[in-house]
């Protein structure tokens, strides 16, 4: 197996592999296509049902295109007297914006200390940081609830947004620290010689170079916060404060088994994040390179 290969032989192998390559690529494409179709089928079902009348849903097959196409379901969902999807959207937007700003900002600051500064207890503090990455959220869920209750914060956005400004999560700090470590130290040493403070180095040198990493943290945070169900479920009782994700559940509770409305609501709730993904796809895919490969 390990015998040296001559140039002629290598050419032969390479040529054969291009021919084999075409066949392989066709097979791969076929599998990918079939897989993609089956991954999309549930979305398709949701979409077509949202355009069908309740009567048609009962008689027609699940995946057929509606015979009598109607926007009526969306109309009913948006004008429903008991739930206000536009308000839900606004709440989601508010919470997500606050959390994303808080998480990105505070983790960027904290990561700087771990990446660039020497301080007492640094190694062990870093170990603590790493171990909290493995800490399941369930351990802090109940006492946090009690704590926020005693602060009279339940039924406000505060329990969902305020903690984001305090560190932004171990994973994000770690991610940004790794990224900062990759930025040449010569840059900040030059700035130090020019008399810059660490805050200047952080804000003028490191931050401008960390765009892709910050964007990754931001996009993950947007997705995580937007899709969060448990947090709003625990802290937002008032229907006027609910986020889209929780609002859809409230809507479901009121309209159980009315599939035309449920699916229209699901479409409405799913659209914003998919749009965000298409807009932010570039940052996203690039940024992922950093998350897995440590």
């Amino acid at each position, binding site marked *: 197996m390990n015998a040296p290969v001559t140039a002629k032989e290598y050419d032969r192998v390479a040529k054969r592999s291009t021919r084999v390559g075409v066949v392989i690529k066709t097979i791969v494409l076929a599998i990918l296509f079939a897989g993609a179709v089956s991954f999309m089928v549930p979305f398709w079902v949701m979409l077509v049902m949202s355009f069908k009348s309740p009567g048609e849903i009962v008689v027609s097959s699940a995946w057929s295109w509606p015979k009598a196409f109607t926007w009526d379901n969306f109309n009913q969902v948006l004008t429903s007297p008991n739930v206000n999807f536009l308000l839900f959207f606004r709440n989601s937007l508010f919470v997500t914006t606050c959390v994303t700003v808080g998480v990105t900002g505070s983790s960027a600051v904290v990561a700087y200390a771990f990446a660039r500064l020497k301080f007492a207890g640094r190694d062990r503090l870093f170990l603590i940081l790493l171990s909290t990455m493995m800490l399941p959220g369930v351990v802090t869920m109940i006492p946090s609830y*009690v704590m926020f209750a005693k602060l009279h914060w339940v039924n406000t956005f505060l329990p969902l947004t305020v903690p984001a400004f305090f560190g932004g999560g171990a994973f994000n700090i770690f991610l940004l620290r790794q990224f900062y470590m990759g930025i040449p130290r010569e840059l900040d040493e030059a700035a130090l010689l020019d008399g810059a403070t660490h805050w200047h180095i952080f804000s003028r040198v490191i931050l401008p170079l960390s765009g892709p990493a910050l964007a990754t943290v931001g996009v993950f945070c947007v997705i995580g916060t937007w899709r969060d169900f448990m947090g709003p479920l625990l802290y937002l009782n008032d229907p006027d404060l609910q986020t889209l994700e929780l609002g859809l559940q409230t809507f479901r509770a009121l309209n159980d088994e009315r599939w035309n409305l449920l699916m229209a609501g699901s479409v409405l709730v799913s659209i914003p994040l998919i749009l965000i993904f298409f807009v932010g796809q570039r940052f996203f895919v690039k940024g992922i390179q950093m998350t897995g490969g440590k």
Partner: protein
Amino acid sequence: MDQATAPTPHTAMRPTRIVLVLLNVLLGSLCALAQNAPPDPDLLNPKSEAARKLRDSMATPTNDWPGYLPVSEEDKKRPKVNLRFVVWDGEEGRPVLQKAVREFEKHYPWIKVKFEGVSQNFQEKLLNQVAGECAPDVAMMDMNGFNRLAKRNAIYGLNEFIAKTPGFNLKGYYKPLVDAHSFRGEVYVLPRDIAPIGIIYYNKELFRKAGIPYPDGTWTWDFKPRPELREKCFTWVMQQLTKKDKNGKVLQYGFASGWPGAFLDTLVFSQGARYADDPEEPTKVLFDDPRVVNAVQFMQDIMLKEKWFPSPTELRSGLQASAHLLFAQGRLAMYEVGIWEVPAFRRELVPGKPEFFEWDIALAPAYKDGGRGAPTGGSGYSILKQTKHPWEAWLLTMWMAGPPGMAAMANAGIAQPGIRAQALQEPWTPGPNTPKEQAYPPSRIVTDEAVPYVVFNPTSDLWPEVVSHFNSQQDSVWLGIIDAKEAMRIATERSQARLDVLRAEQRLPRANWLLGGAIGLALVGGILAWVYLPERKVRRTAKEKHESRIAYGFLMPWLLGMLFFTLGPMILSLLMSFMDWDAITPAMYRGVKNYVELGTVDPWFWKSLLVTSIYTVVAVPLGLVISLALALLLNVKVAGMPLYRTFYYLPSLASGVASALIWRRVFQPEGGLLNTLIYGPDGNWNFLGIASLLKTVSPDGPVNWLGNEKTALAALILMSVWGAGGAMLILLAGLQGIPQHYYEAATIDGAGPWTRFKSVTIPLLSPSLLFCLITGFIGSFQVFTQSFIMTSGGPNGATLFYMLHLYNQAFMSIRMGYASAMAWVLFFVILIFTVIQLRLTKYVYYEAEAK
């Protein structure tokens, strides 16, 4: 009103109850003696003089009290008061109540009311809000809920308010209703409506077609049809009105109830049996009473053997309809449920329209010995102690649970007034002025006739948890996987054990927070020592000290967050796990009993741990293999890769609630996507032989994926594969990070595709794989949304994920201490798995080390 003459019917309650119990026992033994003697026709007939007298003794038939106080000009100048008012009424009720609230605001101009509707888990959410210190001022309440709040001193006893209100006439309210909303003589809920479920909606046309006279309430039921009694035998009528085709498929059901328990309670109560020895403070459960067992068995037989009564499975999967819908479509002859479904039927059955048929209501049957009894709904309003304006809250309560609010509800046909005088007049009971659209059902007087026979389920706050074992065993009986006797034996055993524990624990010592705080501080001190003790010997220059200070400035957000949102809560959680605490009343010290209860008493703990472990151990590796396969395929340079990548990733972006809804549709047994694929649109396919394989789990017909204990978890695992896109993206990024020349070098060395995969791809990808595995495990052990939304943990706990059980304990039962213990157990389970996985690190290749 003079204090001395204030009506105090509640002090008389105890002796009355004892007399009633004695009477019951006496009646029971008399009936046992005269097994086959026909019941007294005069007692059976609700129109008889005896029955009328009985009703008059329960509430005065007239009422002069208006339900509000006069408002003077001075009152109108009072400072504004805002109240929050929470109800659970659905789409029918809300607009009506909102209108009544607006009128209330007009009458008392200085009070503004914020109206909120809550659709699910109302009682739990309310208790939750009390614990969360954000309770409303006035809340809708019923006899099953108030006790929990009253015991925690979270709602006001109303006797004092009643005494202070001139002219208040409590005797006008149905007495059983007031009693059910009281505890030890104190009224805690001012009742607004009663809703006896002992009434049966019937389709007159189907009765006519079958040649059976309309029921007048004088019928009886027996375990076997008694053809000799004809229309006087309910069981016979039920049998006669069921129509099947040649193959035994049911075309028309004879009877159904709003939920199986409604009819079961009727069967049990009319035989004179009860579920517990004392409804206010139960000490013994009676689910294994032969009368209960016989009733449960009878229900199973009429559902599964005779098919006169659609089983829950049949409704959910076979028919995909509620009993309400079946009745409205003319496919169900008789329907037992409360009066609250009338407005919906009026809307669905409009005279003159083709779907219309004549219908009415009748009194539910008595047992063959003449005994009657049926469950009842009923509700009212309570004043929360967290309110800052108790008197204004009382004005609202009095308005909504007094004549103005009741008139509004009665007018809409939603709820039978709790004040009897109002239930006897228009608009509740039809008269000459009743508009045509409110004509149905004509015999609304039946709702008054049913009141003397209502039986209230135990109101103790311990009861919901105790009865849950009974309910889950019922579910198994209706599924046909267990017989009544065995099910009731298990139900009795488990619920009695639970009741004993709960009763024993009502006297625990107070938890000592001072000691707890000291332990917490010691723990923090220990951690600080661990961090800083090694630093003692380090000598630093002034510059280094300066840098250290600056660093702590940068670290400050994280350090504070660590203290307040991670470490602090962790310590609190650890302390709480040794307590019994609802976050409302003072915490009690429970020692290790929470952990002992987890291990030895709570059957759902082991079940949920098992379910979650199976889910994790199957779903995470499966997802990883699929993600890896997809990533490898996408890494082949084919056209349109970014597009495919997007397609595979999109499901991970969809809203969790929306996906749960979509997948519920996919898993539907009839017309669901999955079964259409397996069985074909007409049920004749056998896709890849899967249909034959599935015969073992579902011998008769298509699999009810989420409703079948054997397939529900598998279905959720299948669903989890849909979210494989997230890991796929990470692995794809990892793959693209592998330098191409490694492969070229391997090829030159003569490595085939498999060797290249094994010796280049896997080692270089191993950090990403490990990352996905560990985060996948941690996430998967805490999976929640799917079972919360799709199955609520059912059937029979088959999808009761650990987090759902924990959530229910913490936020539904408000057992924060117990749930904290659960959280710590899960923490250690996850820790063990993580440590094992980190042991895999030695097989993981890190580029940095190789250099």
